[in-house]
């Protein structure tokens, strides 16, 4: 009987250890998930900001082209 209890408690300890281990894995998983979410949000935010920047640059480029055409008579600026 005593032996039975011992193995019983050993199993109980093992199961507790298993819970602890899995909780640890869970914490890590949740953290990875958070990092993933962050990266996705970061990606979106960057894309949006880069798009804005791109738009500004494009419009500036077009302006320069236009002004260049306005001030020159046929030849391009060097």
């Amino acid at each position, binding site marked *: 009987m005593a032996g039975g209890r011992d193995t019983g408690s050993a199993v109980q300890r093992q199961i507790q250890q298993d819970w602890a281990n899995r909780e640890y894995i869970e914490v890590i998983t949740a953290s990875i998930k958070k990092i993933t979410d962050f*990266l996705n949000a970061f990606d979106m935010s960057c894309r949006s900001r880069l798009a804005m920047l791109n738009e500004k640059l494009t419009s500036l480029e077009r302006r320069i082209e236009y002004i260049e055409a306005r001030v020159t008579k046929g030849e391009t600026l060097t």
Partner: protein
Amino acid sequence: MATSVTLEDALSNVDLLEDIALPDQQPCIEPPPASIVYQANFDTNFEDRTAFVTGIAKFMEEATVHAKLNEMLEEGDEYAVMLYTWRSCSRAIPSIKSNEQPNRVEIYEKTVEVLEPEVTKLVNFMYFQKRAVDWFCEEIKRLCHQERRRDFVSEAHLLTLGKFINMFAVLDALKNMKSSVKNDYAQYRRAAGFLKKMADPQSIQESQNLSMVLANHDKITNTLKEKLETIPGYEEILADVINICLTYLDTRMYVTPEEKHVLFKVMGFGLYLMDGSQSNIYKLDSKKRISLSKIDKYFKQLQVVTLFGDMQIPLYSYITKSPHYEENKSRWTCTATNNSPSYNILEQLQPIREEHTKYISELARHSNEVVTTAQKDSPRTDEENKELCDLALRGVQLLSSWTVQLMELYSWKLVHPTDNFSNKDCPKEAEEYERATRYNYDTDEKFAFVEVIAMIKGLQLLMSRMESVFNEAIRRNIYADLQDFVQIVLREPLRQTVKKKKTLIKSILTSIRDTCVDWMRGMEPTDDPCLKGEKDPKSGYQIHVPRRNVGPSSTQLYMVRTMLESLIADRGGPSSKKTLRKEMDGMALTSLDAFHKQSFFYTHLLNFSETLQKCCDLSQLWFREFYLELTMGQRIQFPIEMSMPWILTDHILETKEPSMMEYVLYPLDLYNDSAHYALTKFRKQFLYDEVEAEVNLCFDQFVYKLSDQIFTYYKAQAASIMLDKRFRAECAQHGIQIPYPPANRYETLLKQRHVQILGRSVDLNRLITQRISTAMQKSLDVAIGRFESGDLTGIVELECLTEVNRLTHKLLSEHVSLMDFEAMFREANHNVSAPYGRITLHVFWELNYDFLPNYCYNNSTNRFVRAVFPLSQEVNRERAPPNTPQDVYGTKVLNNAYGHIYNLYTGFVGSPHFRAISHLLGYQGIAVVMEELLKIIKSLIQGSIRQYVKTLMDSMPKICKLPRFDYGSPAVLEYYYAQLQDIINYPELKTEVFQSFREVGNAVLFCLLCEQSLVSTKTPSQEEVRDLLHAAPFQNIIPRQYVKEGEKPEAKMKKLEQKYQALQVTSVIEKLGTPQQAAIAREGDLLTKERLCCGLSMFEIILTRIKTFLEDQIWHGPPPANGVMNIDECTEFHRLWSAMQIVYCMPVGENEFTVEQCFGDSLNWAGCLMTILLGQQRRFEALDFAYHILKINKADLKDDVIKGVNLRRMCDRIRKFQILNTQIFATVNKYLKSGDADSLPVEHVRCFQPPIHQSLASSC
């Protein structure tokens, strides 16, 4: 190198990530971004079962079987995918036309080479299905064993068996449907046979078997049925399976759509399997073993389920196929083809909307709490966790129910295609798939479809944003529930069983406990009274249950639930009357039941992210392998018009429904779902490629249509704003409505800068901007093109079009970044690097070829009208460029309205036209036009006019007197008629000569009116004033400032002057530019400053310039003989003009045109102007023949007809022309400044000696 970081630091670092602000301006109208998808899967498929030594051996054994079955199911799924996505290879292989074909062997070899890997798969499939059938029957046999039959079979196990049944149904149906599989195999066999590949008897046998499996319809089902029928009592197990499905449906024990549909299919196919030679489902029903009426009810509700992909199965077909159907027909109602209300999506829509709103608001509350209490120190309470967990479960269930709604409607529609009879839009020759998709939904259904998709995808986004929160709450809640259950709830049943010495139940209970318990101290407290069957002490017995953020493992959960089930199950046939349930205490049972029920959803919740994705998966709306197979190779792929995602997207675009516009990206997202499915589930590159190709095509179409629409929308809006309000009101009074364009929601779409499609990020705003830019440029081009295709009167419309475009540009610029309007306009006008634009050139061209020769001026209306008959030849203009309504005013109605308005301006050229010209041409353009006009005037005066004057002067009488009054007016007229005979009869006078004068007159008047429109205060255009104001800041003109008390205005002005010094053009250019540039700047500055101050006039310059053209002798004749002036001699220009005046003053006959009609007042303008410029105005006024006649006639008031000329009428005309001439002289003199300074005439006075009579002279 690697520095070690503690776990706490690492975790806090992760938490800190949340604090980083990641602004994203775009409104969210698309599904969650998926650049990175992270899904952890902890399902071990019972690999860890041996670790649970405390479990009951029987269930461990079952777990082993379970694992094996799961693996087979997975394999079966792979074969199903293989069959479903099978595309015929044999059709692509060149066929052998004759036995003599030289490359015959080569073709066969290649055929074998190509098909061999595919055939290997088929062989494997054959073995698999055999193995699966054997295994399944083996399992059924085991369970049906006399001894086992009494035992309890767990729900999970029955369900897995159900899944097997489903797998057989699917595999068999796919095999039946795919004729291309059979064809490919036949081709392979022929080739292999020719090459003698299959020589050994074993492979011949194998090949034979495979052909049989492939060729025989329902081979798997039949084999299965045959084998099952050899097992006594197999129907009992199947009845259990069917009952469990029914129970699950009754209690809504399913989450994902697939789970629900599997239940249906298992019931259908299960009944078919059960009804055979050995058993009869109707007998089972009467024994109350199964309930056919309940099943019938379900089948009536849901008539069609997805078998696989786009292959659907009407559920009643299983029933009608079964052998005992005929005699029991009347018991089924689901076989009647009536519509189930669940397929009326329009009716379902309202409840769905309500659910959506309700759930979203609830979610929003929680989501706000999460945001605002992110920094909360204490973790959530158990109640909060439970609430969140429930919320998550309800969320996925809602999503699943909506997805189910859509997919079921889609399935039903696939099975019930429309035809020409029920849908008039559907052409008779429409193909099968088209009838099932394209023409099968009406407008409202499509909108409802889109709306539900939007709700699904929208909610999915919201929920996935809260995934971390949900995950933690779910895990904590499940952990708490589970531990509370095993540590606290189970105490009472334990106590009872110990007390009543029910060892079996006790052992199961302890087993449940030991399998998953997580004691506070790592060990079970030994002093718990319940273990001894004793009551708790009065003070109560305290157990501290720990809390963790983790759920049970998959095996653990399975073990706990199965063991628990064995206690509470009351299922089973008549043979299993003795259940453990009856031995349990009622109170304990309820708590066990409750836990068992709620723990069903743990698996789904623990895999929240996967469940969420499955519940929102609409990928099957795209796959159409079944229908492709039906076309027998006629179609390689269907066009986008038949593809559901595009049908829905296009529907929104075509109807332009404002409330749907913001949803337009959701149907496009279906491609994401499908592509994801093709890559991860089907794992077929070609399917992905096809999705991708379709997306490429659709997205182009989408952007094209959308940008076109947006441009038209804003154009129409601008044109509606600009449209005259009174015109609109007037139209409305006459019952003509010019509607304002309905407001639409393009703003949100225009803010999209990263649309996620197939893993690409598309800047929608940029794509639309590009197209809108082009459209804008084109519409400006069209506006100018239209002007170029018409006469000068079109300038007013051009101005209006420019303004409409300017407003469109302004409205659009709020959302997209376009080039400056001026820049675009210049580009369209070809005026960027060239000095003069298309408009200027065309204005000049029109002036030269049409305006000057053909228009008549009217001095009293200040307008030009076209002469009644043209004297110059017809002008050929370029054709207007082709255009669509949106290139002009936006819509046909608006084009029509504006057309009517601007039609009013086509009959004349007047102040609106000059205003438009001065506005559109600008200083530079006006300057060049004037310069060119001066050239024309010069060439006319020094060319044709001079020539004619010379000729006519010769025919003038040398002397022409002013006869005395005594003769009477008729005689005087007769005198002049005689004197001027030659002039009057000169044939070209009334044509060529007058025409030349008219052209000069028109040119001069054009300059005059242009100037007036530039500076006139009468007209609303204040071009110059505006220009001056704009120039002021650059010219050191600072408005007077408000001065506080004690402040010196001079000092303040000085300060301001200093502040704006950098703006001053002249000083800056003097500093930085070349001397030449500095000089230009100074001149410009001076000109601008003084323009209004001293009334610089352009017309004055023009007059001075014209004066220089008149230096020829011919205009003045020889100097007067008397040294003072000519009186009777006809040598000067004004005498000729007087002669002409006589000519044009003569009244004309009834059907003749007067000079005014032909040449207008421009003629007089030219004559008077030249007279003035030659300094002959006074002499003209004093000595004019016509005036003389008038004067005499005024006195004698005689009337007569002389040589066909009515004297009175002639005098009337003379009077009118005299007034006109006076006006012209006054106007021109005003500009010449000869009239305004009183001192001027004095200067010009030459003092002559008074004439002395000869008699007196001699006497002196």
